[in-house]
């Protein structure tokens, strides 16, 4: 649990000791730094006459993105679809599985160790096999996304469900609470912040999983676009796809963080 002895006074003292940093200052600071880096990039590329197929300037990337906007949007949506479906399936499978593992000693001793062992296998390495077995549609990508999201969510959920303090379990037992009551009122809410930690890890993996899946074999998606445009020396377009992937990753991550704030407002924030 939280530190129970924190008083208002000590909190105020801690604040005074911290270096002056506020979210606003961090946002302004990082934005300015980012703009400066982009400008420096532009200047260096122009001054050194670096060819566009090797390293395009930010303005060339922006031009390419504008010229290819409808294609980019199409590929973006494909990758987004694969990512979100794989992620959603992973949640739908992982959370119930974690609950089953926590509640069943049999599963704990049979399935769970295998799952953890399977975790050490690099899932993206399965992507070529999936292409071999299933082909080039969205499904093999969704499966790769599912595989990379699956473990962080299972482990986080299982950890969260068992994170109830012993004394709280004693209290609940002293009231002869039913399994359902214990789960609904204590275990699951306790697990929620942990689950969101898992979801935030998983969502960043998810985009990577989708791109890897597309690298291995596909006809669309931002990963496919990067592969094709680099092979055709359309490097600015590849960078454009990269920009969109980054944006997707960031937006999805903060989307989860936003949902977390609404669903588990009591979760510790950093």
């Amino acid at each position, binding site marked *: *649990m939280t530190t129970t*002895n924190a008083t208002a006074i000590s909190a105020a003292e801690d604040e005074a000791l911290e270096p002056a940093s506020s979210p606003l200052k961090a946002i302004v600071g990082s934005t300015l730094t980012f703009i400066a880096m982009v400008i420096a990039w532009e200047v260096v590329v122009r001054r050194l006459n670096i060819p566009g197929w090797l390293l395009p300037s930010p303005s060339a990337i922006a031009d390419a993105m504008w010229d290819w906007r409808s294609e980019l949007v199409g590929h973006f949506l494909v990758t987004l679809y694969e990512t979100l479906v794989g992620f959603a399936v992973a949640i739908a499978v992982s959370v119930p599985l974690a609950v089953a593992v926590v509640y069943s000693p049999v599963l704990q001793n049979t399935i769970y160790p295998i799952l953890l062992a399977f975790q050490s296998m690099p899932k993206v390495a399965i992507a070529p096999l999936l292409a071999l077995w299933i082909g080039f549609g969205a499904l093999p990508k969704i499966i790769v996304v599912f595989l990379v999201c699956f473990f962080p969510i299972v482990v986080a959920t299982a950890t969260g469900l068992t994170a109830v303090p012993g004394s709280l379990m*004693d*209290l609940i037992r*002293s*009231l002869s609470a039913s399994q359902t*009551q214990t789960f609904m009122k*204590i275990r699951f809410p306790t697990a929620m912040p942990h689950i969101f930690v898992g979801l935030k890890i998983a969502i960043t993996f998810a985009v990577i999983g989708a791109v890897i899946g597309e690298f291995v074999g596909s006809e669309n998606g931002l990963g496919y676009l990067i592969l094709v445009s680099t092979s055709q020396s359309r490097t600015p377009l590849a960078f454009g796809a990269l920009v969109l992937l980054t944006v997707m990753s960031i937006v999805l991550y903060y989307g989860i963080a936003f949902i977390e704030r609404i669903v588990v407002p009591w979760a510790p924030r950093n």
Partner: protein
Amino acid sequence: MSQIRIEGVCKTYASKAGRVAALEDVDLTIEPNEFVTLVGPSGCGKSTLLKLIGALIRPSRGVVRFDGTPLTRPTSDVGIVFQDAVLLEWRNVLDNVLLPAEILGLDRAAARARAIHLLDLVGLRGFELRAPRELSGGMQQRASICRALIHDPSVLLMDEPFAALDAMTREELGFELMRIWDTDKKTVVFVTHNIAEAIRLADRVVAMSPRPGRIAKVLKVELPRPRTLDMEFTPQFKAYSDEIREVIYRGTGASR
């Protein structure tokens, strides 16, 4: 109104080093509405004894009886307070206090009224809708006492409830607890490792010694109620304190 009888209770735990006796041959009768403190150094089995009374663990030998009936499973006639308040962070203070009432399926309106009454009693009026983390440690522990009392149990078990608090809050809460106990009589079993606290609160102090955990002495505290801080400077209080120290540390070389 429960009389608690502990008869020939032993509790052993299996550990790597073999079987460890946490409690050995404990006999104790706690009368209805009595305030009993269990005091002793760590490893004396005082918390184990408390869990046995709450039927959270079973004795290896012997029996615990409530009004003559052997205790085989937890009874809702018991309220528990732990060292940590362990409030649910996702519930406000009022809903935390109401948790046992929800689990036991008590009448909502009546439980709510009692919760508000209890919070008022411990000085938490106006904090009903606050989140636990907005409260100081002392206030959190006050709320957890309300939670233990919400279903009006006749036995209150307290496991070092003030040990995590600073000395002043600790004394303050002790007096508050006695005030509540005065208006709403219950059998209280209170575990502490603080000898002064044990004497200050108790009708009887059960002094325990470690390895194996056993009752070293049961001491009746004849100080009048309501208790005051001044009493701690009386020769009588000091005599109790010395007596407890003597039995607790007997044989450890630390006794004076």
